[in-house]
């Protein structure tokens, strides 16, 4: 599973369905690769001992579907039903779809749930790991910090958060809306092992996540919104816009091998 493969699926499905939310899916391509390609231990989506992954930034569901497909947990037909009438693959993930642990879309709700899952494993004394992927703008939500406080206090060391630190939010740059520059210090202050990492460096993501500690862990993953398609990088309009035919061909060309 590679970031490029994820990105090609994101572009292909977004174009086919005429739906947006491209930039935020492209920025997490390596992160979902790290999770589904390496970190998550699960023989299948129904494995009762599987690790859990909660995509708290639900608007990037397309990247999740891409990884579930590459993992072999979604068929090509299912993937190609993205945003079709009556499909379980909507813009935001639905737990009715096998492989999706939690329905998300409203920001700030994934980490409290992931903390509950991590607490459950602590109580059961099993070695399940719980991963949650948040956006940096999602850290505007007070509930993120409620959960961060709890997980830090209770030393939920089986919980790993990855923050997609792309610096963009729905109406502009995070630096001009609510400053997110000191995320590492903030998470550390809440009792987490906080480390900054290149969010497009698959090996760095995997090795940082694999480090064992006594606290919950957060990877502040520096990413580029729209990464991989030059005309989308750091362009907020790609949070919203679907692709024209020209855009589509140009994007696929950049991602290698054309359409």
């Amino acid at each position: 599973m590679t970031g490029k493969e994820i990105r090609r699926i994101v572009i292909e499905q977004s174009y086919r369905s005429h739906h947006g939310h491209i930039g935020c899916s492209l920025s997490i391509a390596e992160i979902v690769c790290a999770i589904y390609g390496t970190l998550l231990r699960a023989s299948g989506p129904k494995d009762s001992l599987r690790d859990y992954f909660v995509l708290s930034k639900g608007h990037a569901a397309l990247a999740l579907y891409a990884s579930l497909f590459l993992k072999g947990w979604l068929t090509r037909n299912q993937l190609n039903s993205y945003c079709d009438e009556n499909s379980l693959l909507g813009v935001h993930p639905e737990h009715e779809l096998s492989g999706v642990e939690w329905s998300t879309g409203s920001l700030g709700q994934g980490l409290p749930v992931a903390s509950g899952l991590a607490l459950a494993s602590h109580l059961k004394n099993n070695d399940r790991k719980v991963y949650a992927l948040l956006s940096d703008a999602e850290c505007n939500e007070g509930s993120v910090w409620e959960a961060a406080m709890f997980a830090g206090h209770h030393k939920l060391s089986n919980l790993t958060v990855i923050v997609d630190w792309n610096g963009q939010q729905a109406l502009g740059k995070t630096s001009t809306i609510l400053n997110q520059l000191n995320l590492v210090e903030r998470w550390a202050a809440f009792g987490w092992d906080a480390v900054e990492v290149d969010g497009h460096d698959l090996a760095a993501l995997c090795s940082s996540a694999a480090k064992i500690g006594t606290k919950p862990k957060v990877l502040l993953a520096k990413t580029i919104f729209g990464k991989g398609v030059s005309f989308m990088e750091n362009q907020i309009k790609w949070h919203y816009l679907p692709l024209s035919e020209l855009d589509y061909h140009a994007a696929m060309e950049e991602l290698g091998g054309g359409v």
Partner: protein
Amino acid sequence: MRKAFVQTLIRLARQDDRIILLTGDLGFMALEPFADEFPKRFFNVGVAEQNMLGLASGLAKDGYIPYVYSIAPFCVLRPLEFIRNGPIYHRLPVRIVGIGAGFDYGNNGLTHYGIDDIGSLRCQPGIHIISPCDYQQAETAFLRTWDIPEPVYYRLSKDDTTIVQGLDGRFVLGGAHVLRPPAQVGILALGTMSSDALKISDLLEQQQLSCGVVAVASVSPPPVEDLTEFMCKTGTIFTLENHYITGGLGSLAAEIIAEKKLDCRLVRCGVEALPNGRTGNTESLHIKSGIDPHSMVKRILQELKSAT
């Protein structure tokens, strides 16, 4: 009903280790017996109700039966979206225990009143809403519902002593209990208002007016059959609730009357005006809202007069 809750939960927790109790830093002199017996299954999550509901959702997804405890508005209104997107949408057995039904927290002010909790939850399919009439019924309700797969909201009163005569602790999910048979006038009472409804019925009896009384604890699922049967034999129905008249029992009765085409008149008695900031105890707040027994008797007689 706190004692009934904690004692019943301890009994259940002894037989099922899936039970966990979370509190949003409330429950002084109430939750300690559980915390003492099950220190590893008790979490004070701090003053963070959104996270409390999120934690409970995660715990329930992994097989636990979490009870979350706080004052009604803090564990219903504050984390409402977490309840909706969490246990309701994912169909998980989270138990929300709200203390302070209606004006229980009298002098504490609107922030502490549970007068819109039912209305906020009743429009959601998939969550049960139970407002017990007394502590005995509360205990039965806990025992009947602790292991059902859906989420439940228990709307508890601080009253640990009053007993509703004739109820004898009975509880049926989706049912209501007729305490006085249908007559020209009938009261549908929500939860703890049932004991006041009996007082009102007694006072009316002294004036040679028979008044039926139904106690409603199971708001969702709604006791449609029981209420239909009672209301179709009653001339004028008065709903009596420590809740805004919109969204609660009055609204439920109106829906049933309209949908079943019942031939009865409905007068919704409950909280109508936004509290005005003047402090008062529970009793005086009931008087202000016109839902104390004496105001209700007056109102019922007036309504009957104006109808003729």
